[in-house]
């Protein structure tokens, strides 16, 4: 049985996530006014339509790409020495620390509670079109999966093969892969909530909502 209290205590003892902000592509980097210790904010607004704090700008071919904070947090390190230079893709330009949000805590707990269906091989994964439409329209929880159901398309080197779900019947409670993202073998693709777990999962959601205090 899932011990939500114990898990919450564990997370509470180390409630920060450290984020390395890397150049998404190569280009000329410039920083704003941020310095270590400075506060940053994630996207806001009813639809998260307002971007977070501007961290840096990477310019290539006169296209400026702003890099915004994806989460609320604090600046730990700014690689000032890179300001005004051409950086290669993947170069670390900044480091942030952020206090785990309710959603993240819930996601950590759910990963332990749900039945995880993992990637059999390193590949890109897609839902089959019939499922994909339902996920887009009604969300993953509208899908009930059962053992042997054709659920995914696995794409490696542009070659696609169907992949069947195996495991207990239940609804898709969490989706862990993104469009066009490579998933390593063993990484979870989806989290399934079988009927007998619904109570425990709802309890976990409730506990996190009430017990986890997000740091301002």
């Amino acid at each position, binding site marked *: 049985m899932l011990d939500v209290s114990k898990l919450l205590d564990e997370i509470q003892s180390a409630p920060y996530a450290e984020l390395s902000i890397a150049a*998404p*592509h*190569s*280009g*000329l980097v410039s920083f704003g006014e941020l310095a270590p210790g400075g506060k940053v904010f994630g996207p806001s607004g009813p639809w998260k339509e307002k971007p977070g704090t501007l961290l840096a700008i990477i310019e*290539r*071919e006169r*296209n400026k790409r702003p890099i915004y904070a994806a989460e609320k947090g604090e600046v730990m390190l700014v690689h000032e020495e890179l300001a005004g230079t*051409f950086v*290669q*893709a*993947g*170069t670390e330009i900044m480091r942030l620390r952020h206090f785990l949000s309710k959603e993240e805590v819930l996601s950590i707990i759910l990963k332990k509670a749900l039945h995880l269906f993992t990637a059999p*091989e*390193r*590949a890109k994964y*897609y839902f089959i*079109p019939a499922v994909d439409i339902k996920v887009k329209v009604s969300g993953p929880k509208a899908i009930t999966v059962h053992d042997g159901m054709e659920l995914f398309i696995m*794409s*490696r*080197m*542009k*070659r*696609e*093969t169907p992949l069947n779900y195996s495991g207990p019947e239940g609804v898709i409670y969490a989706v862990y892969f993104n469009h066009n993202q*490579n998933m390593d*073998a063993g990484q979870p693709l989806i989290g399934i909530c079988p009927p007998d777990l619904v109570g425990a999962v709802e309890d976990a959601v409730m506990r996190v909502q009430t017990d986890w205090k997000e740091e301002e």
Partner: protein
Amino acid sequence: MSTTAHKVLVANRGEIAVRIVQACRKLGLEFVCVYTAEDAASGHVRLARELGGPKSLYRVASYHDANEILSVADEAEATAVHPGYGFFAEDYRFARRVSQRDRKLIFIGPSWRVIRELGDKINTKRLARSLDVPTVPGSDRPIYDEMEAERVARSLFEFQISQGIESPLVLVKASAGGGGMGIEEVHDPDLFRSVYRRVRNYAARQFKDEGVLIEQRIRDFNHLEVQIVAERGGANIVHFGTRNCSIQSTGLQKRVEVAPGFDPGAVAYDFDAAKLLEDITRHSLALARRVKYDNVGTWEWIVTRDGRPYLMEVNTRIQVENGVSAAIARIKGKQGVDLIAEQIRLGLGAPLGYTQEDITFEGMGIEYRIIAEDPANRFAPWVGRIEKFGWPSREWLKMHTQVPTDEPYTIPTEFDPNLALGIVWGKDISEVRQRGLEFLDSLVLEGRNATGDPLKSNIAFLREKTNRILLF
């Protein structure tokens, strides 16, 4: 600017990047390579580190990001871009942008106008027909509408039946696809719709374009190519002979290429093979002259068992299999022809420096594409780590690979699982076959995947096919 004062940005990866770097070195040119995180262990990265001058290697987010590639070109002070094959090689917009931006660069390939003209398969068909060059029956533009697709397919079935073909077949191709990806065949008009939808969905996912082409599937044919080489301006155009690329995977990807395209001296054909090779070469040159072709390119043909040729398409780029033509070609009697070096030299504006009469051919070449895949399981790619890779060196053998031979290598899953190209030369068909088998038998290729299963490769398949080269 002289043609040796250039720096070439290699906008590609793997084996072709390695060969472009080697060709640049041969020509005394500087170069700069790019690579993505997944490709950090690739041979082209290592080569750039070992042989490159300052600013010769940059990590980028994607080989597909033109902005990024060009910003690296500026930062590295490159003066020319070599697209290799795939990625930007046949993208006329990229070629145009490279040559028209504020800081202009030379695109090592045909001019963008030529790429646009021949890159459009339909336009190629139209041009070919205007020169009485035969082409495959089928749709004359990408189709986005299901009803129209069905109409075209139905008319192709009816056409084949009227031609007396007993089991007619129709091909459905992703129009933005290439390299044999996104092609399926239909034997029953009632199944057409489901295949069409599958290819369309695949095309939308992989190429972000739902357009499909529908063509008659011609069966029992050989796939031939004519290698064209031309200088800037298109005044001097020559050919470097023919190749036969008929040995392919079930997904219609080439696995073995042979030059020349047929061997009428040793193999009996139902038609005059020598004349056919002359015909397709003549047709290819005629089309090349018509568009003022101005770099390397390949004219792809299918030839039926009864000796009817159809022009399929023109690849306005260097091809994987260029080396097998080079292996049998001599310029003014000299060996060591390098078509990639020729491409760069001519792309930078140097004159051709020889005529068709100066180009001669000697012997026969086979190129093997060595791939981690399972031919018994529809050529499914094998993913894992290569632990041992090596081959004895031979004067008749050339190997091109990005896979290191002195340390393990994990195959990236982002790209085609090609590991190496082995090009074997022999004085005639029996010698080249025997050397081909000797090479395949001596090749060491071992590895394991995440679950500990041993590497699967196509070596046994290549071995089996060696005795089938140049046959129908």
